[in-house]
């Protein structure tokens, strides 16, 4: 659930998503759900010549399972905070396993 919450804090930021089939899409992150499905607004497909079917698309729902990377604006990520949160989550998980 940590990354779900993390992505929720990034709503309305511009992100670039690379899919497992190499399409790269830049857009404004509008929403994310528990499966990390992502909704993008004002999309712009990099390398549009290769993907002409996406030329008239304005917003997009991307299934979480096909995302390879999400590239985030550096200024919007508090790495220290995220590090702490991941450690806490890991500790919680370890506690639960015991």
């Amino acid at each position, binding site marked *: 659930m940590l990354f779900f919450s993390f992505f929720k804090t990034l709503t309305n930021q511009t992100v670039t998503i690379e899919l497992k089939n190499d399409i790269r899409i830049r857009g404004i992150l509008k929403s994310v759900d528990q499966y990390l499905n992502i909704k993008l607004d004002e999309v712009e497909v990099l390398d549009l010549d290769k993907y002409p079917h996406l030329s008239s*698309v*304005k917003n997009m*729902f991307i299934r979480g399972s096909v995302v390879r990377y999400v590239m985030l604006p550096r200024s919007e990520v508090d790495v220290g905070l995220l590090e702490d949160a991941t450690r806490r989550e890991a500790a919680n998980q370890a506690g639960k396993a015991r």
Partner: protein
Amino acid sequence: MERLSLNDSPAGGQQQQQRNRQFPQQNDLGPSAPGQPGQQQQTSGPPQLPPQMFTTAAQLLDLTDKKLVLVLRDGRKLIGVLRSWDQFANLVLQETIERIYAGNLYADVPRGIFLVRGENVLLLGEVDLDREDDVPSSVTKASFEEVFELKKKEDSQRKSGDKKRHTHLSALGFEPEHSGEILF
């Protein structure tokens, strides 16, 4: 929800609780339903967006009854109107056409109604109706037969290329990328 306890007078409280039990998912649909003001529980901390915004349902609700491009894991591109869906992104599309691309050509094939299992969905894009007819200059419309032939050729070329690469990779001890999963 209002903060209610068992000690509250049964008058309004219990009715409310009963109603919530009967329609438990009502609050999950769309932004707060009208006629139930102030029911949301306020938590301390920074102001947060309502959690029901961050569900698959809310994301797909906006796209319902819109003209969409659906890209499947096998590379197919379907264009149709989204009529129904569920939490796995299983979808129903109406008046669907399949658009086949090959080289710098494309062709449309009318298909009809599609029920797509969610796992095969790559992405769903809402078509901007003002721009849907501006096909990029890099592709031109052609007859189905022509495009289909070209596509068959391209597919077999890619397949043999993939096979070659996989044999090389596995000889070096690498598991090929997304093996067992078709992705275009």
